[in-house]
């Protein structure tokens, strides 16, 4: 407990320092990409618990993001609803006023996503492999269709005018919390049990692991952080629409995991960073080469080559730890 608190304080003060540093010295464009990296890290690391550790192939992450984004925006944003019979616009001021409402709104968004995770997880986690993937894909689509028809949050038009609350500080703080809690989780009995389920579900059950229950818990954990990330992304973009959270978004997160190495926390972080930075970094290449569209070609090519030459991802299931670093650095013990 003592150590957890210390880590939290360290993380928050680090985020505070980095936030100040970024605001003071670094170009806004780079800061924005760092912020997007932070959000991608939360997404990838949380999905890693479901897909990587527990071995359940979920394609519903964007659905949880959408729930988190819309629920948190519902509390922080001025809503305008057009009455199609009278032509009047009904305006509702934000329920949580000011920046202090942001974190509660985010947490409510995360919890709503977690609740959805519970509701979806209980029936679908009986399914395995491809079947689960299809079921979670279906869940994501249901969320999008429902949002497209909710007039109070703008329906298909989306919800613009979210306040500018998602600073680097909050994004990095939550990314830190997500990563640290995942490290703990991975090393805990719970995490070990999840790995056992991944390796052999039957054997795990025989060993007395409550498979169904643990799977649902992993799902809820992932959904909670996906909801948080959705809320952060919404307040960074400052406009959300159902199409932002389409199933391609889920695929993007899965690709991050596969690129980094499914089951590796370090891999998830590296995958998230690489796939967020790469398309932006290639923008300048495209400009220089005067080849419009080459950006997406290179992006795809990187993925294809990696899958051919390193199908297990950059890290495989290994982690980057101080021990490994020591071994790799010159002069280290072999």
């Amino acid at each position, binding site marked *: 407990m003592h150590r957890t608190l210390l880590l939290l304080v360290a993380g928050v003060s680090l985020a505070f320092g980095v936030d100040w540093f970024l605001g003071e010295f670094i170009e806004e*464009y780079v800061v924005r990409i760092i912020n997007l990296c932070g959000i991608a890290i939360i997404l990838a690391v949380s999905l890693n618990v479901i897909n990587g550790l527990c071995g359940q192939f979920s394609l519903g992450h964007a659905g949880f993001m959408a729930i988190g984004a819309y629920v948190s925006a519902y509390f922080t944003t001025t809503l305008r609803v057009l009455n199609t019979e009278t032509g009047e616009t009904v305006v509702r001021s934000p329920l949580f006023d000011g920046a202090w409402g942001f974190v509660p709104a985010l947490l409510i968004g995360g919890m709503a996503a977690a609740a959805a995770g519970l509701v979806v997880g209980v029936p679908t986690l009986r399914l395995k492999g491809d079947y689960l993937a299809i079921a979670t894909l279906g869940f994501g689509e249901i969320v999008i269709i429902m949002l497209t028809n909710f007039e109070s949050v703008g329906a298909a038009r989306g919800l613009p005018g979210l306040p500018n609350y998602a600073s680097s500080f909050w994004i990095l703080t939550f990314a830190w919390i997500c990563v640290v809690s995942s490290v703990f989780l991975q090393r805990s009995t719970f995490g070990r049990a999840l790995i056992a389920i991944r390796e052999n579900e039957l054997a795990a059950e025989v060993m007395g692991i409550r498979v169904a229950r643990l799977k649902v818990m992993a799902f809820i954990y992932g959904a909670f952080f996906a909801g948080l990330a959705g809320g952060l992304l919404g307040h960074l973009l400052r406009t959300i629409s159902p199409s932002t959270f389409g199933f391609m978004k889920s695929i993007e997160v899965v690709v991050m995991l596969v690129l980094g190495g499914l089951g590796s926390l370090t891999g998830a972080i590296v995958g998230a960073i690489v796939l967020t930075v790469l398309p932006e970094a290639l923008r300048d290449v495209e400009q220089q080469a005067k080849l419009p569209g080459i950006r997406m070609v290179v992006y795809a090519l990187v993925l294809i080559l990696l899958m051919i030459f390193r199908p297990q991802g950059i890290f495989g299931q290994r982690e980057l730890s101080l021990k490994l*670093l*020591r071994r790799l650095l010159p002069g280290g013990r072999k």
Partner: protein
Amino acid sequence: MRKALILAIAATALAFTAIGCKDKGNEAGGSGATEDTVKLGLFVSTTGEIATFGGDTKNGAELAVEEINKAGGIKGKTIDLRFYDTASKAEEAGNVATKLATQDKVLVAMGAVASGLSLAAAPVFEQNGVPMVSPSSTNPTVTQQGKNIFRICFLDDFQGGACAVFAYKELGKRKAAIIRNQDDAYSTGLADYFRLKFKALGGEIVADESYKKGTKEFASQITNVKAKEPDIIFLPCYYNDVALLSQQIRGQGIGDDVPMLGGDGWESANLIPNSKGALEGSYFGNHYSPEDPSEHVQAFVKGYKAKYNTAPSSLAALGYDVVYVVKKAIEDAGEFDRAKVRDALAALKDFKGVTGTFSIDENRDARKPISILKVQGDKFLPVKQIQPQDVK
């Protein structure tokens, strides 16, 4: 060993700082102009779901830039057009906006086509005080994002309202049916405003049916519509849906005396061939007509055909106009200064573009007429212009 680790971390940090360090010296003067060039930004999607729209807009804008540079530029400075693709994604629109505003330091930014992308870019430009002019985002909330955000196309409410006025006053129709795509913001927006205006004029909406994105078979909707005996059918959808809908509507025996009516989503070279004659005698509202005999429009159509070997769409025309609007604003402002250009944009009056003569109103939206075109043979013929004051 530990030293090596620290060194490595320090080196990465340093490299990072070097890449992204703020260029403090240039910040105050960052108005996008050097001695002989002026930097303008363009951001549209040339990849992803809506790539064709972005591609046309980009072509139109590049044609205008080429013409202006050939004629001596803006106040003697050639245009340095910075173009970035937004890949039909809101995240990328925000990134590109940040890059244009803070790294390239453009004087004015032009884009995006889709409202969802404009909405993601607008807060960034507003925060950095960069005027942004959207060629074709029709969602009313786009320009509400701040005093630097403009647009040069008409809005969904005007378009829907104008269609209602045309149906009621020009065609003398009293019983309208609507078939809308419920998953599409554009479609539901047009349908809502058509409905409001048509009822306000005294007409009756006898049926308001909706379908889901990707529907190919509209039998149930059309049966419901047919039972109510409308005298006009409003189809606020994109051309691919319209082509199918129109054939099935005629196929179910709703006769030619019940014309169909729609918005600018109908415009496509594929509309007439795909609908196999079912749309003959139907109408739709559009930004302009390439058949317009005016000299200005014909010169643009000719120039565009010469460069790209295809007829310009409305989006190409709007992309062309947006560059000239920006040019006019810079000339009116008299200086290469963002705030002054913003004020000049806000005060723009009676600008003569290929998409009509328009002014910017107090909401930073364009007040411009809509051209109602009639489908006749293999052509879209202009039949009527509806002015903003006719709809209010």
